[in-house]
């Protein structure tokens, strides 16, 4: 069975390719797969019919206890015959139904065979979750097959409707299955059914599963999707919506019936819903003009019939129910296939336009008549045998609900007779007012599949006792009725009440058909009581509307709104938790040292003033004050590295701000005056502030253990071989954190560059060499002299022509932009800065400093060069691409992490060496210093990227946009 399932999957995968080669003949090839599986089932018939189930199992996801457990017992075996036999015949029929130029034929073939496979899987699955998966897979393939004509709106809509309705039911069923599996302690369907549990929970789960079954089998109130699904090609209607998929619900009811038929509500629910469906379907079928829709409503009606008898839950009813299921599969798929042929040959399915078809195509008429005879229960068809059995089973139940069912199915059968007659008359009769149809030629074997199916209906009727024996393997799961013999399927049971009922339905049905014009006018006067389609339509509209409303009310598109919501949730959620776990710290002091108060006041005032500031620079400087205040706090708290880094960062940040804000107007918030909802913002700000204050105090108060950092000092000294605990923590103990941080910095730096440069990442800082022409090494060592100013340019100072320049690119600036004092200072300090930064870098391991501070220090030197000499000076100062700096830095850090792995140590393990170096004395070297060098380079890269983007490139863009700036004509001038 698993092999068969795999073959189905494989066939589905290769079907599209094969179709390209074989055209419609591919269906013959594909039909071999269900035929093979059918042969397997027939091969195992003796085993199964003797009462032993065929079991196969394959471990799928053992961790989830999910296994591909399949099991073929008597019921599954019969379902297999139906699903595979009808499937194979419909596939053969497809060969003639489609033409080679049918669009998306390969896709159709793939979907169809995949559907057949999942349907097969559904009836043999033993694990309830496996069953559910196949269940939903049939829904999906049904969706794809109904929507085969993707260019038709009605087709897409019908597919979606079927999908939504059956999936909704499927979800209810999933809940039911989970409940049931948990309650029973096993996921095996056979095991659950063998020892049925009871109780309120089980009842609930069973009802939920029934909801799934009812939606799948298109019972009231879910029936409306089935007629709409007739938008599918006819083979799909014949297979999915007559023989196979809609039977899935019936199958599940039948499978559960032996165990759960006595569950409260089971019988009542199924009989009532079944009778109602049978009547509604039959009633509506009576007024259809489209043969296919007539059959569709007929199918709805018959499914109701099946539900009544299969769900009834006695031995005789089970026998009758499965017999009816087989009969229905045979005659209904025949009729659908016949309609497909009629459609092909005449070009219409409208029974008002068809006339004289019976005489023109007698074979078709005979096949249909046989099927119809089976449907209305005429001997010797199998349908007759089944219907007799149903009537008898209900008659002999002698319960009130049995009587309800009996009256219902008799009334329903009357309607069935009426619409069957209407079908036969509509399709084949000669109507005086209508011109006889013209027929297209079709190959004779087009009729093969329906003919075979209708003949099977006849044959089964004749060998009814044998079929009865097949079914008995299932029906004997029910307890035998007291005091009388079991019913047996047979063509002739003698004159008995059931026969009389059959005759009654026939007579009444014929009368209904005879008086059809009266019936039609009566139907027009009766309003449609049950109109679930409208309900569905309203529900869908409601969902659409709610979705749009929810989306538009939550997705406002306003970032402040989103942020506000996030913060509000934060305040409420965290605040509630804090209030519930208030653990105040034992040692609450006003201040650690008096200076703290003074600094805090300055910082708080600066922060408040920054909020109120209306000029950009004022606000930036005020925020800067809080930053420098942080540095002082760090220093006094005992964190010199932090203080040092903070001061440097604050300075670089201030420069970055100034570089950007010089392009923006002086005042902020002109477009949006801050009156708007400022109360709300203040509230939220205060709320967050208070929450964080409580977070700080309560998290300290609830601390129960010594901080892990107590041992950090020892680890740093013993393991990291450094005395600066913070630095060793960064580059060694928690090196991975720092590695992540470096990545963030690189992303940010690259982001800055790409925001400003837009189209290229490579460094294109202008180099003075490009301006002066290449100079040899020796020449480069000579002082740079000012070149003569271009002619025609006013010179304020003629003696400047031979003046020595302090900076390489000093002369690229317009005279009014130059500051000689700045140039001199930078010239004197730059190299000292770099040397000091190197010292800070290498000193960091054992003293104050480290890669971050050192990198910022070097960055400061670059800031100074840029401020004094502009972007050409920056290009002269750094001849390496910023990207390369960042990359090298990360490479060094990653290398430090990875290299120890090659020596069998953990990543980031550090080693050290020490020795005497001339001039330096005792020197020790720790490998984690290399990591720190990486940090150093990355930080320099960041500062460089900020300078060349927000500085140099912004300058250039400004010059491009605004020719009035003093640097006008710079390039022409310097190229002289």
């Amino acid at each position, binding site marked *: 069975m698993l092999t068969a399932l795999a073959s189905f999957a494989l066939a589905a995968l290769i079907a599209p390719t094969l179709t390209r080669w074989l055209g419609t003949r591919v269906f013959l090839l594909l039909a071999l797969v269900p035929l093979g599986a059918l042969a397997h089932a027939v091969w195992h018939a003796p085993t199964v019919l003797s009462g032993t189930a065929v079991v196969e199992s394959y471990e799928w996801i053992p961790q989830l206890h999910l296994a591909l457990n399949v099991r073929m017992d008597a019921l599954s075996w019969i379902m297999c015959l139906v699903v595979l036999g009808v499937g194979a015949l419909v596939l053969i029929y497809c060969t003639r139904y489609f033409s080679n130029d049918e669009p998306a034929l390969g896709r159709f073939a793939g979907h169809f065979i995949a559907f057949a496979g999942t349907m097969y899987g559904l009836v043999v699955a033993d694990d309830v979750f496996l069953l559910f998966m196949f269940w939903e897979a049939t829904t999906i393939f049904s969706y794809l097959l109904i929507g085969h004509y993707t260019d038709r709106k009605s087709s897409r809509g019908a597919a979606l409707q079927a999908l939504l309705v059956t999936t909704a039911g499927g979800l209810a069923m999933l809940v039911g299955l989970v409940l049931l599996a948990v309650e029973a302690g096993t996921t095996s369907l056979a095991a659950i059914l063998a020892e049925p549990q009871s109780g309120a929970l089980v009842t609930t789960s069973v009802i939920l599963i029934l909801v799934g079954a009812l939606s799948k089998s298109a019972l009231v109130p879910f029936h409306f999707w089935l007629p709409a699904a007739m938008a599918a090609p006819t083979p799909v209607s014949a297979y999915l919506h007559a023989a196979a998929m809609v039977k899935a619900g019936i199958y599940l009811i039948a499978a559960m019936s032996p165990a759960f038929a006595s569950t409260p509500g089971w019988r009542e629910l199924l009989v009532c819903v079944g009778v109602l469906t049978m009547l509604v379907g039959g009633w509506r079928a009576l007024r259809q003009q489209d043969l296919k829709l007539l059959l569709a409503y007929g199918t709805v009606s018959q499914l109701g019939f099946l539900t009544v008898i299969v769900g009834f839950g006695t031995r005789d009813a089970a026998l009758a129910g499965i017999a009816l299921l087989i009969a229905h599969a045979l005659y209904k798929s025949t009729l659908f296939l016949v309609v497909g042929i009629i459609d092909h040959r005449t070009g219409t399915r409208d029974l008002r336009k068809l006339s004289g078809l019976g005489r023109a195509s007698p074979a078709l008429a005979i096949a249909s008549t046989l099927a119809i005879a089976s449907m209305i229960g005429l001997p010797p068809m199998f349908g007759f045998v089944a219907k007799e059995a149903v009537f008898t089973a209900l008659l002999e139940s002698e319960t009130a609900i049995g009587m309800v069912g009996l009256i219902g199915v008799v009334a329903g059968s009357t309607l069935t007779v009426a619409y069957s007659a209407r079908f036969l008359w509509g399709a084949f009769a000669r109507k005086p007012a209508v011109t006889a149809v013209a027929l297209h030629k079709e190959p004779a074997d087009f009729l093969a599949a329906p003919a075979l199916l209708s003949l099977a209906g006849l044959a089964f009727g004749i060998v009814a006792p044998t079929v009865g024996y097949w079914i008995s393997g299932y029906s004997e799961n029910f307890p035998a009725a007291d005091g009388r013999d079991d019913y047996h399927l047979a063509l002739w049971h003698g004159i008995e009440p059931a026969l009389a009922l059959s005759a009654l339905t026939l007579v009444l049905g014929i009368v209904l058909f005879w008086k059809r014009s009266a019936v039609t006018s009566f139907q027009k006067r009766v309003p449609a009581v049950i109109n679930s389609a409208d309900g569905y339509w309203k529900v869908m509209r409601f969902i659409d509307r709610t979705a749009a409303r929810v989306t538009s009310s939550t997705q406002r598109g306003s970032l402040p709104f989103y942020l506000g919501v996030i*913060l509000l949730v934060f305040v409420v959620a965290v605040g509630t938790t804090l209030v519930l776990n208030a653990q105040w710290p034992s040692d609450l002091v006003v201040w650690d040292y008096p200076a703290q108060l003074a600094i805090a006041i300055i910082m708080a005032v600066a922060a408040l003033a920054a909020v109120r500031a209306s000029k950009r620079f004022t606000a930036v400087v005020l925020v800067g004050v809080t930053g420098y205040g942080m540095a002082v706090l760090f220093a006094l708290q005992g964190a010199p590295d932090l203080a040092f880094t903070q001061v440097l960062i604050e300075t670089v940040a201030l420069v970055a701000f100034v570089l950007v804000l010089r392009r923006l107007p002086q005042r902020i918030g002109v477009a949006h005056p801050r009156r708007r909802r400022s109360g709300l913002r203040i509230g939220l700000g205060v709320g967050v502030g208070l929450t964080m204050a409580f977070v700080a105090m309560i998290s300290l108060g609830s601390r129960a253990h010594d901080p892990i950092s107590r041992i950090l000092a020892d680890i740093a000294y013993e393991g990291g071989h450094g005395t600066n605990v913070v630095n060793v923590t960064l580059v060694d103990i928690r090196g991975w954190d720092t590695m992540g941080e470096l990545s963030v910095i690189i992303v940010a730096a690259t982001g800055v560059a790409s925001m400003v440069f837009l189209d290229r990442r490579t460094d294109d800082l202008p180099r003075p060499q490009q301006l002066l022409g290449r100079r040899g090494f020796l020449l480069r060592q000579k002082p740079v002299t000012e070149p003569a100013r271009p002619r025609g340019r006013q010179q304020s100072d003629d003696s400047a022509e031979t003046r020595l320049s302090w900076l390489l690119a000093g002369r690229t600036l317009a005279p009014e932009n130059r500051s000689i004092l700045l140039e001199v200072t930078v010239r004197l300090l730059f190299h000292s800065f770099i040397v000091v930064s190197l010292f800070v870098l290498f000193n960091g391991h054992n003293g104050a400093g480290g890669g971050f501070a050192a990198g910022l220090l070097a960055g400061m030197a670059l800031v100074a060069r840029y401020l004094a000499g502009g972007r050409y000076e920056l290009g002269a100062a750094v001849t390496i691409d910023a990207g390369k700096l960042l990359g090298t830095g990360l490479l060094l850090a990653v290398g430090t992490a990875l290299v120890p792995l090659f020596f069998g140590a953990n990543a980031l393990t550090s080693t050290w060496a020490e020795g005497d170096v001339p001039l330096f004395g005792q020197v020790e070297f720790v490998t984690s210093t290399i990591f720190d060098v990486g940090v150093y380079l990355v930080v320099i890269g960041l500062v460089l990227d900020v300078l060349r983007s927000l500085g140099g490139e912004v300058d250039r863009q400004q010059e491009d946009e605004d020719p009035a700036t003093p640097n006008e004509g710079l390039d022409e001038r310097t190229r002289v």
Partner: protein
Amino acid sequence: MSVSLVLVVLMAVMYACGVYLMLERSMTRVVLGFLLVGNATNILILIMGGRRGLAPILNDGATSGEINDPLPQAFILTAIVITFGVTAFLLALIYRSWRLSRADELEDDPEDLAIAERDAAVQEELRNPDPLDTEVDHLDELAAAHDLGERGEE
């Protein structure tokens, strides 16, 4: 653990100011708010380190009992630099926005506003159904399916 009330209050004030600024529509104010929140968070971590102590550099004869907790310091150090990186990125965003539209205001997302308008359109259509209007595809498909299912009932 010892908590300095002054630091806690300072942190709360800076959080409040930062959040207030971040909720503004001016991008410059948002960035400034971000910086204030960043600084406030560093104070929070600093508070977690407990009472002040000696610098965590063991050369100067400090022992592990006397030094200020080094772990929060390491966190703050990385936080400082990351805050700068992100600030630089935000500044680049501001510059870009300014170059494109001469505005440093956070505008509402037009796509989201379009959804709200579409919702209004749907409501309007449901109030006054117009069979020729095909604006709302999904609803139309369902209507078509509905029609098919009930075809020929009249």
